[in-house]
């Protein structure tokens, strides 16, 4: 493992306790809501904040008590923090020069990095004249030019507008793929995590609640927060074969069989809505009442209170109009057994 850390930080009324292992070339995303402790963890890894207990090992060297400057970490900050008094080139050359590389060599390295991230023509520009996307690319070049063993990215796309975000995200993905060291990405955007990371660690209230590949996390969320992030309905219950007794009432029939405490997840788009109890094949059928309805992409996402369980449903706009759905409308929901993912909790 390139990075092996246990990060414990206590503050009044709040604490963070996180174990983290990142292999060489691996990108791990810390995904979680604001205030979960993601950025604190990142600052501890960077050596910008002390930890109350635990350790940080980077490439076999224990750096727990080393200052930031001697840890060989590169950080891409959310608002890039490019030095305002230095040109893009000098910003990127800063790391090599700080490590004793002669100025001319450092500038040559910096120029190569600027070219590599696609902002070579802005080498002489001051940061304040760069667009958000350009500045973030320069910031990435600056972090990578110092040849870190661990690259830390703190919400690197959060400050960008939607269109810039798209291109910077795909470029970032490419650069992360070719980066040989370990990388830790902090984000509250599940899509960033899915696209950029090899593994996602979901952090809530200062602790890990789930970890896995993007595919695992998005298919099998383990908390209400993650389910909402990845846009799935999540129910908890006890399975007996193809039958699940849902906590809080109701039951599900599933295609896969399981035993014991389980999660059951299904997509909002997999739920069908009927004005009356449907006849025919569907086995999972519940009556309910619409609580909210709002546009969601090119569909309408309605929330239905199905006997106390909140279920998200995606309908076409046409279906909503045809059924005259609005808050308070009585509906019947059905989900095919094969659409429900069941996994042990």
């Amino acid at each position, binding site marked *: 493992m390139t990075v092996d850390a246990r990060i414990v930080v206590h503050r009044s009324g709040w604490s963070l306790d996180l174990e983290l292992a990142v292999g060489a070339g691996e990108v791990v995303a810390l995904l979680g809501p604001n205030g979960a402790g993601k950025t604190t963890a990142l600052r501890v890894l960077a050596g*910008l904040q002390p930890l109350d207990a635990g350790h940080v090992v980077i490439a076999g060297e224990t750096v727990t008590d080393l200052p930031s400057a001697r840890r060989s970490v*590169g950080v891409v900050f959310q608002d890039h*923090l490019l030095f305002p008094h230095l040109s893009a080139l000098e910003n990127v050359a800063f790391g090599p020069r*700080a490590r004793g590389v002669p100025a001319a060599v450092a500038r040559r390295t910096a120029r190569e990095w600027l070219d590599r991230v696609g902002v070579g023509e802005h080498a002489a520009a001051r940061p304040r004249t760069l667009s958000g996307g350009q500045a973030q690319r320069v910031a990435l070049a600056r972090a990578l030019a110092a040849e870190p063993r661990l690259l830390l990215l703190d919400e690197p796309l959060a400050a960008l507008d939607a269109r810039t975000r798209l291109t910077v995200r795909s470029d970032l993905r490419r650069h992360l793929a070719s980066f040989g060291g370990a990388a830790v990405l902090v984000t509250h955007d599940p899509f960033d995590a899915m696209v950029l990371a090899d593994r996602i660690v979901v952090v809530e209230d200062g602790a890990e609640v789930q970890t896995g590949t993007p595919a695992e996390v998005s298919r099998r969320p383990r908390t209400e927060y993650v389910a909402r992030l990845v846009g799935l309905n999540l129910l908890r219950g006890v399975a007996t074969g193809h039958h699940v007794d849902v906590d809080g009432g109701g039951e599900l029939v599933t295609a896969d069989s399981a035993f014991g405490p389980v999660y059951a997840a299904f997509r909002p788009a997999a739920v069908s809505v009927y004005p009356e109890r449907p006849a025919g094949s569907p086995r999972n059928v519940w009556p309910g009442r619409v609580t909210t309805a709002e546009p969601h992409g090119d569909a309408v996402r309605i929330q239905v209170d199905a006997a106390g369980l909140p279920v998200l449903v995606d309908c076409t706009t046409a279906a909503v109009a045809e059924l005259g759905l609005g808050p308070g409308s009585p509906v019947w929901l059905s989900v095919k057994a094969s659409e429900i993912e069941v996994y042990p909790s």
Partner: protein
Amino acid sequence: MRPLLRARPTGGGPGRAPAFLAVPAVLALAFLVLPLAGLVLRAPWREAPELLAGAGVGQALRLSLLTASAATVVCLLLGIPLAWLLARPDLPGRSALRALVTVPLVLPPVVGGVALFTVLGRTGLIGRPLYELTGFAFPFTTAGVVLAEAFVALPFLVLAVEGALRAADRRYEEAAATLGASQWTVFRRVTLPLVAPGVAAGAVLCWARALGEFGATITFAGNFPGSTQTMPLAVYQALEGADPRAAVLLSVLLLGVSVAVLGLLRDQWVNRL
């Protein structure tokens, strides 16, 4: 220069100021401006080249520029680190220290001179061992002038730089540290450039204060032409003694420098801070 107040765009105009305010206000303005105008009007412009060429005046001018600049350098070397310390939020007893730093601002300069004497005079706390060791004592030397000027001018620099440091975003220093920069490199290549406008403004204020220094200088360093007689001291001596015309001319010269400093500060630095 931008007006400090603008007339209200609509709604009856600014209105007439009541006489009980307007009259004293105009008086105050006249009180500030008239003496300066008088200085300029009464200056012996025709004899100026001859007066300025006179040995005493040129000497005083050179000494003033030299000592004020030297005092500014001393203040920069000592004041920037002190400002850096004061700007740290985790410094214990910070407000007390800050109050101490501002003491010379309100202290009568003569008191400053006496205080310097008690410490650095030939029989002073530090002055005596220094004299016994090296045979050198600060009073009545050019170095003493620099010391006296630095003493009264230091707070100007410290407060200006401290303000700039506190306004600066310290996260740039963190960014520099993650790039492998030592603390000295961070200070030199990031912190200092970030607060450069504040340092420049502080240095100009400091230099101007040192240039005009009178009380502490005459108390601590005396009034010896060539070695400790700076411009303000020369003005004083000229007015008291032989040549009041020279006093007026020197005063106009100092006034010019002050106005230039004010202009520099306004347009070059203050607006950027």
